[in-house]
């Protein structure tokens, strides 16, 4: 009886025909496996194609180690600075009304739609010898391009929107009431941020940081323009992969790539875990539309 009732309450929806359903699942899984999963699996096969010893010797090579070191250092500098920027931008944009907010939102999103090569070229024209500041920096013997600062700056460009775009829709939806209550009770700005705002945004913040870190460690196009590809000096891990690959050391290239592939898989696991905490789930308002009025907090 109850089975009949529940089946009556839930009529079959469009596309619930069992044959169609199985066909769709089958096609999507096969295509997905071929297009998305196979590239991940082939990395493992190719990395070990010449045996464990070649794999181990690639990872033990000083140039590979330096590339790993440089990639980690870049992330350690770029990600925290980016995070501070993301929090500041979200605080300014969601807690205050000022003219030009919408424009600011659009400008923050710009790096997301620009080719990494264009970003790299743009940096050449600021810090290169033919650029704005190049001659000045040259005179004081400060190296930006073809050195760590250039790599960090280019990485910060391509990842500028990552933290802000996670925080802005969430803080927009949370409104200003809690912060206003805390301030009117006498809490300082910092105290309000750390004990009222931060606990509400911590998962979204972490989500943005994880995605930002993955992009910084994997950035190729922008960094390849500004780094100068000096082996053992300014080669990050993705650039090192290209160098080995074009040097006919395919197994070595894939061995280095396997490190980044593992980081990608860890990123996805962290992403799923954070989504279970509610991060990344707020519907993103289109950034150019007028801000949504502050929603009432859910009871």
């Amino acid at each position, binding site marked *: 009886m109850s089975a009949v009732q529940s089946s009556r309450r839930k009529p079959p929806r469009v596309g619930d025909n069992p044959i169609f359903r199985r066909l769709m699942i089958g096609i999507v899984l096969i295509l997905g496996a071929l*297009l998305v999963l196979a590239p991940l699996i082939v990395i493992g096969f190719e990395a070990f194609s010449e045996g464990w010893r070649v794999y181990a010797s690639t990872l033990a090579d000083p140039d590979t180690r330096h590339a790993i070191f440089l990639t980690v250092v870049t992330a350690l500098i770029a990600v925290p600075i980016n995070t501070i*920027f993301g929090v500041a*931008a979200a605080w300014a944009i969601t807690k205050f009304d000022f003219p030009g907010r919408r424009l600011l939102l659009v400008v923050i999103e710009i790096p997301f739609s620009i080719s990494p090569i264009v970003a790299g070229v743009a940096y050449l024209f600021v810090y290169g010898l033919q650029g704005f500041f190049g001659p000045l920096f040259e005179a004081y013997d400060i190296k930006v391009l073809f050195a760590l600062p250039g790599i960090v700056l280019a990485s910060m460009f391509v990842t500028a929107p990552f933290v802000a775009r996670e925080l802005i829709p969430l803080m927009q939806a949370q409104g200003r009431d809690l912060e206003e209550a805390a301030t009117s009770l006498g809490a300082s700005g910092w105290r309000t941020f750390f004990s009222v705002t931060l606990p509400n945004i911590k998962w979204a913040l972490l989500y943005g940081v994880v995605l930002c870190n993955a992009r910084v460690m994997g950035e190729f196009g922008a960094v390849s323009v500004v780094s100068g590809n000096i082996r053992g000096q300014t080669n990050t891990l993705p650039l090192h*992969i290209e160098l080995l690959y074009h040097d006919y050391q395919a197994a070595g290239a894939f061995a280095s790539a396997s490190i980044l592939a593992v980081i990608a898989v860890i990123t996805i*696991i962290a992403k*799923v875990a954070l989504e279970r905490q509610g991060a990344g789930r707020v*519907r993103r308002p289109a950034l150019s539309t007028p801000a949504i009025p502050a929603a009432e907090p859910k009871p």
Partner: protein
Amino acid sequence: MRRNVLPGLSLSLGVTLFYVGLIVVLPLAALIFKAASLGPSDYWAIISSPRAVASYRVTVLSALGATAFNLVFGLALAWVLTRYKFPGWRIVDAIVDLPFALPTAVAGISLTALFATNGWFGSILSDLGIRVAYTPLGIMVAMCFTSLPFIVRTVQPVLEDLDPALEEAAQSLGGSDWTIFRKVILPLLAPALLAGLSLSFARSLGEFGAIIFIAGNQPMSTEITALLVFIRLEEYDYQAAAAIASVLLITAFLMLAITNILQSRALRYTMKG
């Protein structure tokens, strides 16, 4: 109007404007300044040279092909993930983001390994007379991979929120599944699909890392615009690099404007319900 009592406007806005100015606006302004300093006739000569035009053609056509494939496959993937629950769907849902998480250079070498004539897929395809690696088809494959998540992730939430009552009403009026999909569901998905399409297309136009390994990079046939910029830089021809990069930049701005318009329409559409 309510008075704002919250502190920190000057600090947070100051940090934001400083960062955005130094990291985003200054470099782009420098690029535009450099390209503009060329003068109209030189600028036009560079950006309309046969090699540049050939690179626009292969980039745009491959991006269109990849986006068309992703439109169908991305919609099917989003449909399967929201409508059907099958063992392992959570894993499939997570793996959809792999193209965003996997560095482009890594994707480039592994797609090349798969589609080269001695690779897993390439050997089968070459028996059928199809060559993928080092042809425009390879460029398309790389673009398909890197831009797949855009359409899935923009369509999925709209599909999840679709009111079953609409379908029931159409069913009670005697519509077949295909008719209901075409006349009821697809129009509701259209704004999200369009927004996903423009994001996917824009990403494909700018993609570099995944493509250069698989493309073959022959001038006039398999050389994408981003690579041509890179080659001009390596030749120390900074003016040509600036001019061609500015074409990519202007295209990106156009796509950004289109995406924003489409997204705001998509949002208006879904917020009403």
